[in-house]
C-alpha cells in the first residue's frame, strides 16, 4: 500500500475545471459473470451504487430472516409417536421404529440429513438421562436414549440408512384390497409413491390421473416394468458373532444371511412385478386405450376394406347389368325368331298362293281356248310351277295377274327350256 503526501496548503476541495478526461472509447463488455449481471441490473433499474448496495444488503437480510423460522420444526413429531418405545429393550433396538424414536415419524425416508441432525438434537435435549433423572427417572433407565443414539447412528450413515429404509415396512403403502371398491387413482398413487423411494433412477414418473396421455401412461408402466430397485435386506440379517473362536459358525451364519437376503430380494422383486401387473390390469386408462385401439383397428379395417368393398359392389352391379342385357337379348332373339317364322310362313303362304294362282290361271283363262288340251296344259303348267324358283314365281304370278296369261307362260317356258331346267318335250304346248 502506498502513503499519501501530507497537506501543505489549506485546501479542502480544488477541482481543476479546465481539465478533461481523455475521450473515452465505447467497447462491448463481455456479458458474463456476476459482476456483469450486477452492472446490467444497475443500468436497467437506474440504481446508483449506494442504492444497489442497499438492495443487495436487504436481500441478504431477508434470506437470514426467513431462515429464523425453521420450517423443519413443523414437520417433527411434537410428541412421541409410539409410547411403547420408552420401555423398548435397548438391545433389541433393531426392532424399534427408529424414525419414531427420532420424532421423524411423519417424514421417514423423506427426512433430509439436516432434519435428522436437528431432530436428534431435539430428542437428546428431551430424553438425555441427565434430564430424565432431574424429572425423577432413574439414571440407569436410559434404554430409550440408547435407541435414539442408535437411530442417529443408523440414519446419518448413508449406507446404514439405506439398509434401514429398505426394511422400513411402516413406510410401505399397501395396495387396495382386491374385490373392494375404490377409486383407482386415489388408491394406487400413494402405493407407487412409496415404492418410488427405492428407485435408482430419478425422477420417477407419476401415476397421473384419468386424463393422462397415452404416452405418459405407457412410459409410467414401462418404467415400473423395468424398475431398478436399490432395496436391500441387510438390516434383517441375523447378527454375525464377532468372536473369532468359531470361524466355521461365523461363516455359516454369513452364508445363511446372504441366502436369506437374496431370497427376500427375489421375493420383493416378484412382489413389485405382481403389484405393477395388478395395477396395470386394473387401470381404467389402459382399458380405455385398448378399447380405443380396438375401435381404431376396426375403423382401419373398415377403411382398408373400403377398396375391396367397392370392387365387390361394382362387380355385382356389372353382373346384374350383364344378366339384364342377356335377358333382353334372349327376348329380342326369341321375338326375332318368331317374326322370322311368321315371315317364312307368310312367304310360304304367298308362294302357295302364287303357285295356286299360276296353276289355276289357265283354267281361269279358259285354257286359252284349247279346252281339249286342258289336261296337257294343267300338266305342263304344274311342271312349270314346280321348276320355277321363288323370284320367278313372284314375277310370273305378277304378270299373270296383269292379264297376259298365255304370253307369260310361253315366255317362262322359253326361259326354262333355255336354262335347261325342263326339256322342250314337256313344254310342248307353250313352245
Amino acid at each position: 500500500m502506498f502513503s499519501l503526501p501530507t497537506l501543505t496548503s489549506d485546501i479542502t476541495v480544488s477541482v481543476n475545471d479546465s481539465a478533461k478526461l481523455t475521450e473515452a472509447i465505447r467497447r462491448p463488455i463481455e456479458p458474463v459473470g456476476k459482476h456483469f449481471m450486477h452492472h446490467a441490473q444497475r443500468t436497467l433499474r437506474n440504481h446508483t451504487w449506494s442504492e444497489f448496495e442497499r438492495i443487495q444488503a436487504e436481500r441478504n437480510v431477508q434470506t437470514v430472516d426467513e431462515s429464523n423460522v425453521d420450517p423443519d420444526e413443523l414437520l417433527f413429531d411434537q410428541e412421541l409417536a409410539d409410547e411403547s418405545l420408552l420401555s423398548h429393550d435397548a438391545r433389541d433396538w433393531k426392532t424399534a421404529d427408529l424414525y419414531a424414536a427420532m420424532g421423524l415419524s411423519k417424514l421417514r425416508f423423506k427426512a433430509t440429513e439436516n432434519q435428522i441432525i436437528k431432530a436428534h438434537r431435539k430428542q437428546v435435549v428431551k430424553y438425555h438421562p441427565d434430564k430424565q433423572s432431574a424429572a425423577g427417572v432413574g439414571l440407569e433407565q436410559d434404554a430409550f436414549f440408547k435407541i435414539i443414539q442408535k437411530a442417529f447412528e443408523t440414519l446419518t450413515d448413508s449406507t446404514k440408512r439405506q439398509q434401514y429404509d429398505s426394511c422400513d415396512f411402516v413406510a410401505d403403502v399397501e395396495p387396495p384390497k382386491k374385490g373392494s371398491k375404490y377409486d383407482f387413482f386415489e388408491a394406487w398413487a400413494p402405493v407407487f409413491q412409496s415404492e418410488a423411494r427405492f428407485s435408482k433412477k430419478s425422477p420417477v414418473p407419476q401415476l397421473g390421473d384419468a386424463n393422462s396421455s397415452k404416452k405418459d401412461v405407457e412410459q409410467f408402466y414401462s418404467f415400473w416394468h423395468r424398475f431398478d430397485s436399490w432395496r436391500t435386506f441387510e438390516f434383517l440379517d441375523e447378527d454375525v458373532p464377532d468372536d473369532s473362536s468359531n470361524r466355521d459358525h461365523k461363516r455359516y451364519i454369513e452364508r445363511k444371511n446372504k441366502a436369506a437376503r437374496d431370497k427376500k430380494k427375489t421375493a420383493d422383486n416378484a412382489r413389485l412385478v405382481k403389484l405393477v401387473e395388478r395395477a396395470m390390469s386394473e387401470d381404467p386408462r389402459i382399458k380405455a386405450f385398448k378399447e380405443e385401439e380396438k375401435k381404431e383397428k376396426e375403423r382401419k379395417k373398415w377403411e382398408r376394406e373400403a377398396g375391396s368393398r367397392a370392387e365387390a359392389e361394382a362387380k355385382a352391379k356389372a353382373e346384374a347389368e350383364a344378366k339384364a342385357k342377356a335377358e333382353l337379348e334372349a327376348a329380342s332373339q326369341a321375338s326375332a325368331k318368331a317374326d322370322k317364322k311368321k315371315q317364312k310362313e307368310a312367304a310360304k303362304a304367298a308362294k302357295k298362293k302364287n303357285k295356286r294362282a299360276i296353276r289355276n290361271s289357265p283354267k281361269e283363262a279358259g285354257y286359252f281356248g284349247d279346252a281339249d288340251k286342258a289336261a296337257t296344259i294343267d300338266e305342263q303348267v304344274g311342271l312349270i310351277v314346280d321348276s320355277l324358283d321363288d323370284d320367278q314365281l313372284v314375277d310370273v304370278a305378277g304378270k299373270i295377274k296383269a292379264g297376259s296369261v298365255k304370253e307369260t307362260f310361253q315366255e317362262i317356258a322359253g326361259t326354262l327350256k333355255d336354262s335347261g331346267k325342263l326339256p322342250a318335250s314337256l313344254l310342248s304346248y307353250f313352245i
Partner: protein
Amino acid sequence: MSSPVIGISFGNTSSSIAYINPKNDVDVIANPDGERAIPSVLSYVGEDEYHGGQALQQLVRNPTNTIINFRDFIGLPFDQCDISRCANSAPAVEIDGKVGFVIAKGEGKEEKLTVDEVVSRHLNRLKLAAEDYIGQKVNQAVLTVPTNFTTEQKDALSTAADKVGLKIVQFINEPSAALLAHIEQFPSEKDCNVVVADFGGVRSDAAVFAIRGGIFTILATAHDNTLGGDNLDAELIEYFAKDFQTKTKTNPRKNARSLAKLRINSIVTKKTLSNATTATISIDSLADGFDYHTSINRMRYELVASKVFGKFGEFINSTIKKANLDPLDIDAVLLAGGVSFSPKLATNLEYTLPESVEILGPSNANASNYPNELAASGAALQARLVADYDEDELKEALQPIIVNTLHLQKPIGLVDSEGNFVPILLAETSYPVQKKITLKKASGDLLIGVYEGDSTIEERTVDPAEKKANEEADEDESEWSDEDDEPEVIREKKYTLSTKLMELGIKGVKSGLELVFNINKDGKLTVSARDLKTNQVVKGEL
C-alpha cells in the same frame, strides 16, 4: 426442482459439458464412455451411429463415414468453408449451398446430412450424456462460441439445438467462459490484463482481456485456422513415418489407412508426453505387415515440434500487438484448450514473454489442471447465473445499451508521498464504475491529488562494460565473457503524471481513510475521501 441449465463447450475437435452440481461445484460431465473431453465426431456403420471416442476409432477402418471438424461449418455458405480439414474423413460436399456429408448406409443406400443435421445429432448426444449423468431432463444450455462467430452462425446453432429440444439461453464467447471459470476457481479482485489463448485441435484463438472490477472487456482477438494441435500431430507423424521408413524401407504415408493408424497413435503418444517424460508407440501392422514399435522422450518430441511451439508464441505476441499493448502491459496468459497440456508451451511462453507475465497453464499452481475444460466450466457457471433470471430480464440485460459501455483511455490515480503516480482506475476501465480503497495507516493532514496518468515503456540499457572494468581490476581477463559484451536491455513500465484533475485536502485523520472513486455513465468523476474514525467526508466532482 427445475431442470438444471448446463454449459456446453462445442469445439471442432472435442466438446465438453458441465453443470453445477447440488453441492454448488462445477461438474464436468463424462459421457457413458467416461470421456470428459468428448471428441466431436460422429460415425455411421450401417444403421448404427457412433459418437465420441468410439466414433474416433472408426477413422481408421471407416473414414468415409466418419464426420470430424464440422463445428466451424455451421451457418456458413459452402464456399467460405475450409473443407480441407475433412480430407482424412467423410468428405464435405455441397448440399443446398451449405456443407454436407454423404454417408453410406449399407446396401448401396446413401444418406445426405447437412452440417446442421450433424450438429443437431452431436448436441443431442451431448444432451443425452448430460441427462444420463444428472438423472434429470435437460432442456436449457449456455453454449460457448468463438469470438468470430457471426449472428447467422449463432442462429444456425440455436436452430440445430432447438431441433433436439435444447434451448440455448445464451451464447458466450469461449475465451470469456474460460476466464470466468478461471476467476471463479482462483478469485482475485485485482484489475489486470489477461490474454486468453485457446489452442484447439485445428484452430487457435486468442483474446486480450481487460478485467476491471470483475467486468471483462475484450481489447483484441486473433484467430488462426491453420494452427492447432493437429500441427503438432503432423510433426510427430512425420517423425515416426521417417523413422519407420528407415527401419523397414516402406513408406506408411502412401497408405491412407496406415496414416490414420499412425495419426491415432501419435495423438495418444503426444498426450502421454504431456504427463510423462517418455512414451512408447506400438502399432501392429502399420504398413505392408510391418509392426512399428519405438519409444520417444519428451525432449525429442519438443525438438521435433519446436517450430510449431514457436508459432504458438508468435501468435500470442501478435495478438498483444493487435491490442496496441506491450507485453509488459499483460499480467497473465491463461492457456485453454487441449494443446495447453504440453509443458513446452508454457515454458516457451515464459521464455518469450517478460517475467512479470504469469503463465496460467496446467503446471501453474494458480491455474486449473484441466485447461480443456475451462470453457465448459465457464459456460456452466454462466448457466447457473442466468438460471435465476427469466427470459425477458436476460434479454434486456443483453441489450447493446447495457453491453456497450464507455472505457477510460488513460489511467486515473493518485500522487503518493514520493510524487509518483499510483493508478487507481486503469486504462480500459469501463464505466459506470466505483472503486473503493482503504488506507488503514493514513494519519494526519493529507493531500489527495487526483491525476490522469500516462504509461510509458522505459528502456534502460545496462552496460556490462562497467562491470567488466571492475572485474579487471580484481582478476585476469576472462575469455568466456564474450556474450556479456552485448548491453542488456531492461524494459520497464512506468507511469507519469499527466493532467491534474483535482486535489482534496483532509485534516486530522487519526486512523485510516477510505477513498471512493466513482465515474457515472456520463463520465462524471467523483472522488470522495472518508475518515474512517470520524466519518468526515470530503468530496470532489469533475
